[in-house]
């Protein structure tokens, strides 16, 4: 085991983590960045350094922009530990991780957690079948392996990433059998309230509109305002069904890509026993921090999407802001420089966050696809616990997610609740007729990645 003390340990090599490292190095901090993947970039810039011309052209300039960040990181002097699965972050500033089958640790003065986002679970009938994946997952497959669907494919759900992937697939020559989106007229009405602020983020808006226009031009069948989505199949996906304008549709497809937005990956902040608030706008938990992202007075900061969904550009700015604050605490940056730097970052951040309320309102995933009403829908994929079972637990006194574990091992499989936690919270809240905040979340304890005794001893 290593025992070097570094000024700053960063977990996560996406926009927030990379930017934090670059900023911290600029002020002379010693920085170690740990990431589970083999290469830099997180999921948004996944494989950007290895991607050739064609892949970069298909994925667009927002993706290619990541190469500037990985280059700046490579020149920053920060140390990158690739393939490191961090399984514990402690308030004693110790970071434990697995690397090539052995456990190692490092001691830091400050820590920035930048574990990013994950796709929101999409618990509908058939979502566990092989052939059903996240749209984000399919995009990762293209970014990292140049893999594209063999046959025509159905994309279903809502959110910017769904349209982005459709657009990218068209550019790559993939045939889209259908785009089934769940955004309703009422969502537009709700979103319009936020238009004035969104207009200041008009570049992003224009990009979105251009993508939709492209789908129409290419005559992709788009089913808008679809409801009651489900996937059929016995041992793999065979078809997707939904209701559109009062009619039931069934489209055969062996590959169905689902997406209904992304949510913060909060495993670290929960394991640190940080307080979390339920966000009614983003329908997820967000850790409570100060304005720089610090959990209480812990010296542990959170930057980027794992602190609430803000997108890649704002994530990068939050990473820099946290790094500047830490540099100031370590007295590597003077008060004047700090004030100048901080102000510039705040101005940019303010600009980036404008469009968020509009997007949150427009792409709010519908309740029926977050809280399964059909009893047979699997909620906990690991232990195969259904919505009906969880409702049954509440009828016999189960008050919250931690008790569901005792009733039926819900949330106790290898994913440690990552894929069922939000659903379980909302399901119980609905069944008990209380707020998600009152229901709470699972107690997450380290190790947050499976570690074997052999690996610990290695």
């Amino acid at each position, binding site marked *: 085991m290593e025992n070097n003390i570094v000024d700053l340990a960063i977990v996560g090599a996406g926009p927030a983590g990379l930017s934090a490292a670059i900023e911290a190095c600029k002020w002379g901090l010693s920085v170690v960045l740990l990431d*589970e*993947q*083999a290469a830099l970039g997180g*999921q948004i810039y996944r494989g950007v350094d*290895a991607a050739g011309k*064609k*892949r970069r052209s298909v994925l667009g300039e927002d993706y290619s922009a990541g190469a500037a960040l990985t280059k700046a990181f490579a020149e920053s002097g920060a140390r990158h530990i690739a*393939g490191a*699965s961090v399984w*514990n972050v402690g308030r004693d500033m110790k970071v434990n991780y697995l690397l090539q089958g052995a456990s190692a640790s490092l001691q830091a003065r400050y820590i920035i957690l930048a574990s990013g986002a*994950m*796709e929101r679970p999409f618990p509908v009938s058939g979502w*566990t*079948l*092989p*052939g*059903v*994946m*996240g749209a*984000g*997952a*399919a995009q*990762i*497959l*293209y970014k*990292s*392996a*140049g*893999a*594209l*669907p*063999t*046959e025509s494919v159905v994309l279903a759900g809502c959110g910017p990433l769904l349209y982005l992937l459709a657009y990218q697939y068209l550019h*790559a020559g993939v045939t889209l059998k259908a785009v089934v989106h769940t955004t309703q007229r009422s969502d537009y009405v709700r979103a319009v309230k936020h238009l004035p602020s969104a207009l200041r983020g008009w570049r992003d808006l224009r990009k979105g509109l251009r993508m939709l226009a492209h789908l129409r031009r290419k005559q992709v069948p788009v089913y808008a305002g679809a409801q009651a989505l489900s996937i059929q199949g*016995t*041992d*793999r996906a065979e078809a997707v069904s939904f209701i559109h304008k009062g009619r039931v549709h069934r489209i055969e497809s*062996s*590959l169905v890509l689902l997406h209904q937005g992304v949510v913060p*990956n909060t495993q670290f902040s929960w394991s640190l026993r940080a307080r979390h608030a339920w966000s009614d706008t983003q329908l997820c938990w967000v850790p409570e921090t100060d304005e720089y992202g610090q959990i209480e007075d812990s010296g542990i900061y959170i930057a980027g999407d794992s602190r609430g969904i803000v997108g890649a550009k704002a994530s990068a700015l939050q990473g820099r802001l946290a790094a500047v604050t830490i540099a100031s605490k370590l007295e590597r940056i003077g008060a004047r420089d700090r004030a100048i730097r901080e102000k510039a970052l705040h101005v940019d951040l303010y600009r980036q966050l404008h469009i968020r309320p509009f997007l949150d309102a427009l792409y709010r995933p519908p309740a029926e696809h977050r809280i399964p009403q059909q009893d047979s829908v699997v909620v906990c*994929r*690991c*232990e*195969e616990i259904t919505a009906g079972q969880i409702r049954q637990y509440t009828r016999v006194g189960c008050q919250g997610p931690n008790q569901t574990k005792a009733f039926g091992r819900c949330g106790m*499989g*290898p*994913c440690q609740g*990552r*894929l069922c936690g939000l659903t379980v919270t909302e399901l119980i809240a609905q069944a008990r007729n209380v707020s998600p905040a009152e229901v709470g979340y699972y107690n997450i*304890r*380290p*190790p947050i990645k*499976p*570690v*074997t*005794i052999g690996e*610990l001893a290695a």
Partner: protein
Amino acid sequence: MHINDASLCRPLFTAEHSLPSHTVTLQFEDESISVPAGITVAAALLLKGAGHFRITPVKSSPRAAYCMMGVCFECLVEIDGKPGRQACLATVREGMAIRRQQGASELPPLAEENQNGE
């Protein structure tokens, strides 16, 4: 439930370059497969048509990679005799032997032991 256990079926994904410049050869179940170097085991199995990656321990249902980023644990396979490996986090290596995860892995449950403070 009867699960078609034939090793390979029609792949859901295809590589954009039909002839990658550099490949590695792996063993999947009883077949030898050639895949582009540098990709993850999960990507390799999807490109080769693995169908399912594992059979669940509870209801023996077939599952395959779902998130591709290490959070869902649906892509668990056995790599070089070690069970419970996340295929989406492992990079392919020449000669790697991969098997589907059948039911529960034999990993000792450390999580419970560790709850008393480590």
